[in-house]
């Protein structure tokens, strides 16, 4: 599934994860090449966030393999996991900013607490990252509760890229934003990926966003990837699941689950 023959940056094989009797991931396989922007699409509750949390080690899969740069990461011990985390950045759906800290302290948090950088140096980097997402120094001293949803998302993006991670995960980056702010966030993600060469894995059901930020799109349904391919191929994928999803039709092979399993 990789775009190149080299070792994929992320390689997932046979990933299985269930909650109670609900099988969320059912032998999922997917690869992401270095420097690639992969977008995983799928309906609500199909396990997109679970996939990302398994790759990040926030959830333990029941079976399967997750390799980062060819190294197995499932079952890593606490210390090794903390080391691995330094390769990752994550933009959470609800931003997940620390409300007890100011904006710049949020952005610098991983540098100060995770990497032991001194606060003045971390503050400089935080201000630079905030500037790169279009936020001036006057915002840096505000509390996160004082920010609008769009600004919170931008702060969260600045925090995700503050330590120049090799891989950044974006969980529903445009959910809850107006179309213009959503496009601003999309532009920032594209800039982050294209200019810095970061590997990006995004999960979304916003097709406008997916088309803009993806090099490659994969569709998740019933715990498996049912289609994947270049973004340009999405409109003529020949896959009934993809066609129904991208056209937003109620009729088709995807049956909406009205009640939780």
């Amino acid at each position, binding site marked *: 599934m990789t775009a190149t023959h080299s070792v994929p940056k992320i390689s997932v094989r046979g990933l299985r994860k269930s909650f109670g009797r609900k099988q969320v991931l059912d032998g999922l396989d997917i690869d992401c090449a270095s420097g690639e922007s992969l977008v995983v699409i799928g309906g609500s509750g199909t396990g997109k966030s679970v996939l990302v*949390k398994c790759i990040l080690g926030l959830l333990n899969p029941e079976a399967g393999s997750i390799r980062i740069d060819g190294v197995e990461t499932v079952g890593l011990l606490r210390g090794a996991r903390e080391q691995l985390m330094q390769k990752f950045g994550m933009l959470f759906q609800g931003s997940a900013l620390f409300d007890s800290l100011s904006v710049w302290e949020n952005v610098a948090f991983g540098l100060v*607490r995770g990497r032991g950088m001194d606060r003045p140096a971390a503050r400089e980097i935080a201000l630079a990252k905030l500037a790169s997402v279009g936020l001036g120094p006057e915002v840096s001293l505000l509390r996160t509760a004082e920010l609008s949803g769009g600004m919170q998302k931008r702060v969260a993006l600045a925090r995700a890229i503050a330590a120049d991670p090799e891989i950044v995960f974006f969980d529903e980056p445009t959910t809850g934003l107006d179309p213009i702010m959503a496009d601003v966030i999309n532009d920032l993600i594209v800039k982050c990926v294209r200019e810095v060469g970061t590997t990006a894995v995004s999960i979304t059901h916003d097709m406008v966003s997916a088309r803009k930020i993806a090099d490659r799109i994969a569709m998740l349904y019933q715990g498996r990837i049912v289609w994947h391919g270049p973004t340009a191929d999405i409109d003529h994928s020949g896959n009934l699941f993809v066609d129904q999803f991208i056209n937003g039709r109620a009729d088709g092979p995807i049956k909406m689950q009205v009640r939780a399993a």
Partner: protein
Amino acid sequence: MLRFLAAVGAAFLTFLATTGRLALFAGTSLATAFTPPFYPGVILREMVNIGYFSLPVVGLTAVFTGMVLALQSYTGFSRFSAEGAVATVVVLSVTRELGPVISGLMVAGRVGAAIAAEIGTMRVTDQIDALTTLSTDPLRYLVLPRVLAGIITLPLLVLVADIIGVFGGYLVGVYKLGFNPQAYLNGTWQRLETIDVVSGLVKAAVFGFIVALMGCYQGYHSRGGAQGVGRATTHAVVSSSILILLVDYLITAAFFSR
């Protein structure tokens, strides 16, 4: 009958599983104290939150507890002409029992609930996951500082509560019951032994550990949005209050059983 036994067995297994999870949580959190990075600033901040900001509520309850104790023991002891023992009863009750227990319960209500609510909110808003992705161990950053702060500050709070509680008893004894001030103070100091104060402080350290641990544990494992956070807060206060009373008996038995 079989169904009843199955229900009892299931409840017992749940109890064992919860105890195991709690012990693992406590052990894993405490183990982070022995490896870097260390967060002394965070520990200090939590000491201020738990200790300093609990002073008013602990002080108020201590002074009224001492006052009521003096009044009640006087009315009781006067029935068999033992009024002279009031000062001794007040100081022994406050230092051994009421100081630590009342402070523990007050801190459980004020601090345990706040810890569970704060960490629970962090859990349901993905802030704890965010900590992990920022290479910061949540147990090291959130749990250990609060548990250490609880262990360190509760004995200090109880020491203050002891002094204020005895002072409350003195106020009632001297100004309401008409005791001679010097005689009341003599009655206070003559029977007081080091073990009385030390046992209370040991209890306080254990209660501090219980309150902080239960607040962190319940908050850390909260699920299901605002309702889940509310449930975690309630569980934190109820479980730590019950544990305080249970452990109080065990420590008292260990110190004073003959």
